C-alpha cells in the first residue's frame, strides 16, 4: 500500500512491520515523531510492544540492550546530543553482541545550538562497532529499517540507520508500505540462543582479563567482516520479496566516468540531477552513493573508484584538525593501489545549510579542471 509519509514515520512503519517488542526512547528534535507514532501504535494495540519511557538516551539504550539480551526485539531512535549521551551504551550494545536497531536522525552538534542536519553526530560514533547505514529516501528508510533487524540478528551486531534531519525526517514522500504477512515471511521472529534467565543467572559483561578480552574483540571485528556478505545477501533477498534493493554502495552512471563524485544521505538525490545534466552535456561524470559506512565495503569501493581518473568526495561533516570523514575513508580504501586516483575533499552544508545543484556542479567542475586540489580540504560556501 502506498502512503505519503515523512522519513520519521517511514521508520515507525518499518519498526511496526518488524514487530519490535521493546521500544525505549527519549524525545529529541528531529527524532520525536518516530517514537511519537510508535507510542500511538503501542497504545492502540496495533503494535504489541512494551514502550518504556526513560529519563535519558543513556537509559533508553540500556533498556534496549537488556531487552535484546533477554530475547526481545528492541528498537530506539535518537539524534545528535541524544546519541552522544548514549556513547557508553553504544559500546555496551556491541560488547554484549545485542542486535539492537536504532534510527539516528542526523543533526548538527551544539553549541551553537542547531537542530538542522549534518553528519557529525553519527560519525563521531564511527569506532564503537555499530553497523551504520546512511539512507537517501523515505522508501529506503522504511526498507532499511526492516532489513536492519534481520542483519543485526544474523551477525549479532547493533545496526544504526541514519537519515538527514528535516530534509528527510520531516519531508513527505510516497512510500510503498509492505503487508505485514510479506514482512513476516521475510523477517522471522528474533531467537536468541543464550538469553538472560533469572532462574539461571549468569554474570554478563563482567571482568574479562587479558587472557580473553582480545579474543572477544577479535570476534566483533570478524562479525563485521562477515556482515558485508550478510548485508548483501539480505538486500538481495529483500529484492525477491519486495522488488527493491540498495546495495552496500550504489554506483550511478559510473561505467566510463572520468570523475566520480562520492556522496551520502540526501545530497545524493541532488547530485543525481547534476550528473544527469552533465551527462546530457556529454561530460563523463559518475556518482557513488556511500550507503553502508560500517562495515566498510572496501572491495566494491575499490572496484568502482579505481576506474576513475579523479574522485571528489562531499562531506557534510568535519573531523576537526583533519578534514572530511568520508574523504578519509575513501583515501584509506584507495591507498596502496598502484596509480590510484587523487581524492578531492570538499566540506559543505554544515549545520543544515542548503547544498544546491549549483554547489555540486561547481565541485565536479573544480575536480575536472584542477590538476591537483589547491588544499587538502576545500570548504564550499564559508562566508569568511
Amino acid at each position, binding site marked *: 500500500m502506498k502512503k505519503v509519509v515523512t522519513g520519521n514515520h517511514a521508520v515507525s512503519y518499518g519498526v511496526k512491520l518488524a514487530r519490535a517488542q521493546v521500544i525505549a526512547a527519549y524525545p529529541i528534535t528531529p527524532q520525536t515523531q518516530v517514537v511519537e507514532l510508535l507510542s500511538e501504535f503501542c497504545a492502540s494495540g496495533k503494535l504489541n510492544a512494551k514502550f518504556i519511557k526513560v529519563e535519558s538516551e543513556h537509559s533508553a539504550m540500556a533498556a534496549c540492550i537488556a531487552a535484546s539480551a533477554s530475547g526481545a526485539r528492541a528498537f530506539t531512535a535518537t539524534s545528535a546530543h541524544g546519541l552522544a549521551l548514549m556513547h557508553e551504551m553504544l559500546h555496551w550494545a556491541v560488547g554484549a553482541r545485542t542486535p539492537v536497531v536504532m534510527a539516528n536522525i542526523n543533526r548538527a552538534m551544539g553549541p551553537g545550538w542547531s537542530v538542522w542536519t549534518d553528519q557529525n553526530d553519527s560519525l563521531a560514533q564511527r569506532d564503537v562497532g555499530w553497523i551504520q547505514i546512511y539512507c537517501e529516501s523515505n522508501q529506503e528508510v522504511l526498507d532499511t529499517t526492516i532489513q536492519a533487524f534481520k542483519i543485526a540478528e544474523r551477525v549479532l551486531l547493533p545496526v544504526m540507520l541514519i537519515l538527514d534531519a528535516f530534509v528527510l525526517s520531516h519531508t513527505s514522500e510516497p512510500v510503498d508500505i509492505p503487508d505485514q504477512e510479506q514482512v513476516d515471511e521475510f523477517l522471522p521472529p528474533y531467537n536468541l540462543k543464550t538469553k538472560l534467565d533469572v532462574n539461571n*543467572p*549468569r*554474570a*554478563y559483561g*563482567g571482568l574479562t582479563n587479558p587472557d*580473553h578480552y582480545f579474543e*572477544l574483540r577479535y*570476534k566483533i571485528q570478524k562479525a563485521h567482516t562477515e556482515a558485508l556478505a550478510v548485508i548483501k545477501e539480505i538486500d538481495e533477498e529483500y529484492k525477491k520479496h519486495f522488488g527493491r534493493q540498495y546495495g552496500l554502495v550504489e554506483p550511478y552512471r559510473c561505467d566510463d566516468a572520468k570523475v566520480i563524485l562520492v556522496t551520502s544521505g540526501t545530497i545524493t538525490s541532488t547530485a543525481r540531477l547534476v550528473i544527469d545534466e552533465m551527462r546530457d552535456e556529454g561530460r563523463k561524470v559518475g556518482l557513488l552513493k556511500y550507503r553502508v559506512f560500517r562495515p566498510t565495503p572496501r572491495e566494491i569501493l575499490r572496484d568502482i573508484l579505481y576506474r576513475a581518473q579523479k574522485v571528489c568526495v562531499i562531506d557534510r561533516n568535519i573531523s576537526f584538525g583533519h578534514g572530511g570523514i568520508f574523504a578519509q575513508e575513501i583515501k584509506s580504501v584507495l591507498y596502496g593501489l598502484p596509480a590510484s586516483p587523487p581524492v578531492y575533499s570538499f566540506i559543505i552544508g554544515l549545520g543544515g545549510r542548503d547544498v544546491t545543484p549549483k554547489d555540486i556542479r561547481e565541485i565536479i567542475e573544480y575536480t575536472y579542471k584542477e590538476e591537483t586540489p589547491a588544499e587538502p580540504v576545500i570548504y564550499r560556501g564559508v562566508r569568511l
Partner: protein
Amino acid sequence: MKWLEKYKVDLPNLNKESDYPEWAISMTSTLLNRTGSWRTFRPVYENKTPPCSYRCPVHEKIPIYCDYLKRGMIKEAYFTIIENNPFPAITGRVCYHPCELECNRKDYDETLSIHNIERYIGDWGLKQVSVKELRKQSAEKSKGSQQKLKIAIIGSGPAGMTAAFYLACEGHTVTVYERQAKLGGLLRYGIPAYRLPKKILDNEINRLKLLGVNFQTGVSLGKDITLSMLKEKFDYVIIAYGAHKNRALGVPGDDAIGVLSGLEFLAQVNSGRKPKLGKRVLIIGGGNTAIDAARVALRLKRKPVILYRRSRNEMPANPQEVSDCEKEGIKIEFLVAPVKVVTNKKGKVVGLEVVKMKLGKPDASGRRAPVPIPNSNYIINCDTIITAIGEQVDLSIIPDELEKTSWGIAAGEDGQTNLDRVYAIGDCVSGPKTVTEAIAMGRKAAMNIMNKNDVQVFSPYIVKISDLNLSYFSHQPQTKAKELSLSARKGSFKEIHLGFSENESIKEAERCFSCGVCNKCDNCYVFCPDLAVIRDNYEYEIDYDFCKGCGVCAYECPRKAITMIEDSQIIEDNSKE
C-alpha cells in the same frame, strides 16, 4: 563445598574460536557467588503503626480492612474490625473518628473518610455474618477449651455490650442487668435517631441475644440487686452503668418548672415520649449533649437557641456536629452565661437573665476562662431551658466497698477494681467519654477475665507522612457520602448521614496510604536489583544469601513497611570454603 556441586559445570576448552562465547558471560551460574556476604545492613519486613490505628481508642487495623475491602474480601475486612470493635455499624455512625484527624493523607490532599468505610463494612457484617460464624471465628482464635465462666454485667451501654459480646462469643454465660426498660444505655437514650437509627442498635442487641447473652431490664443496682449478691452468684461482675447525672445550672431558679436536663430530655424523646416544651427553647452548654438537645428540639418544631459561655474555639462538642447543627439553622450565642432563671408567679420559666462574657486567662483545662463583663446583664425571654453543661457519674449508687475517685469508680487499665472478681468500665470509671472509649474498656475487661491479651498496635513506631514515599500516590479528593437534604430533615428523625455505597467505600479504601502496613504492592519485589525478594503467594521473603543490603526495597516501599537494620550476622564467606 557440597552446595557448590549443584552449580558444577565443565569449563569448555577455550582454545578454539568456536568454543568462545559471543560475549563475556560467566560459564557457571552466579548463584554460587553468595553476594549476601557483602551486606552490612539487612532489610526486614516490619509493619509499623499507622497514626489512625494509634489514635483510635480500640486501635482498629484500618489499613488492613481497607486493603481487604478493595480486594473484594469484605468478610475478612469485617472480622478484622470486630477483633477490636464488635460494633462497627454503630461506631461508623457515632464515633467522632479521631483516626481521621491523624490520617497522614490530610497533609497530602484530604483525610481518608474512615468512618464511612467502617460503617459500610459494619452494616454489611450486621446483615451478612451469622452468629455461628462469629462463634467459629473466636473459637479459631482462642486456644484450647477454657473453663466456662458466669459473668454479670451491670449496664447495657457500649462498654457493657462490648464485654458481653467478647465473653459470649467464647461461650461464657453472660447476664446483663439494665436499669431502663430498653437496652443500649447511652446508645439508645442519649444519641438521637438521626445519628444512630434505633434499628441498627436493635439489630446489634438482637445478635447479642442470639449469642446467648441473657438480658434483664428494669433492674437497678442498689435497689433490686447488690454487688455482694452478684458476687455470690457469678464468677465475675462488671460494673458499667455510665455517667448520666445531669449537672445542675447552679443559678437561682434552676429548679423552676420548664428547666429540663439535657440527658433526660433526650432520653424521653428517644424512648418515644413527648416532653413538654414551650415555644422558645434555650439550651445551655457547648458539648455534644447541648448540640443533640438543640437538634432534637428543632425536630420537635421548636426554635432552639444554644447559649455557650465561651467562644467557638473552646466548644467541647464535635466540630462536625456543630457545623451540621448550624447548617440546620440553629443559632449558637457565644460568650453569654446564665445568671438567674426568671419565673412567673406560678414558678414557671418565662426568661433567663444572662451576662455577657469575655475570655480571660487560660484555666485548668487550658482553655481561656470566661469572665463576666460587669453590667452587661440582659434577659432572654423563653419558655423552656434545657441544661447540658455536663454529665457526672452518680456517685451515690457506687457500693461502699468499692474504691472511688472524685469522679467515679476507681479501676485499673483492665477495669479491675479494688475488689477481687469485680471490674468497672466505661463512663462510670472515666467520667463522660466517647462510645469508642467505652468499647475499648469493655474489650480490655473481657480479655482480662479470659486471660487473653488485648489488641495491640503494630509497633511502637508511629508512621509520619515524611516516612512515606509519596511518589507512589496520586492526589485524589475524599469521596463524599450522601446526606439527607436540609428540607427532608425538618421535623424528621430520619438518619442524616447516608454512608457509602459499595463502590464508594471501595473507591475511598483505595485512597488509604496503608502507612507502615505492607499491602503487597510488589514494589520491593519489582525493584530488588538482585532478585533477592522471593514472592510466594503474595508473601514476601528476603533471600539473605544474595541480598547485598542496598536498601532499594526499603526506599521504594511507599509505606515504610521495610526496616534496614544493622547486620550482625555475617554469612559464611565463599572464599573460605
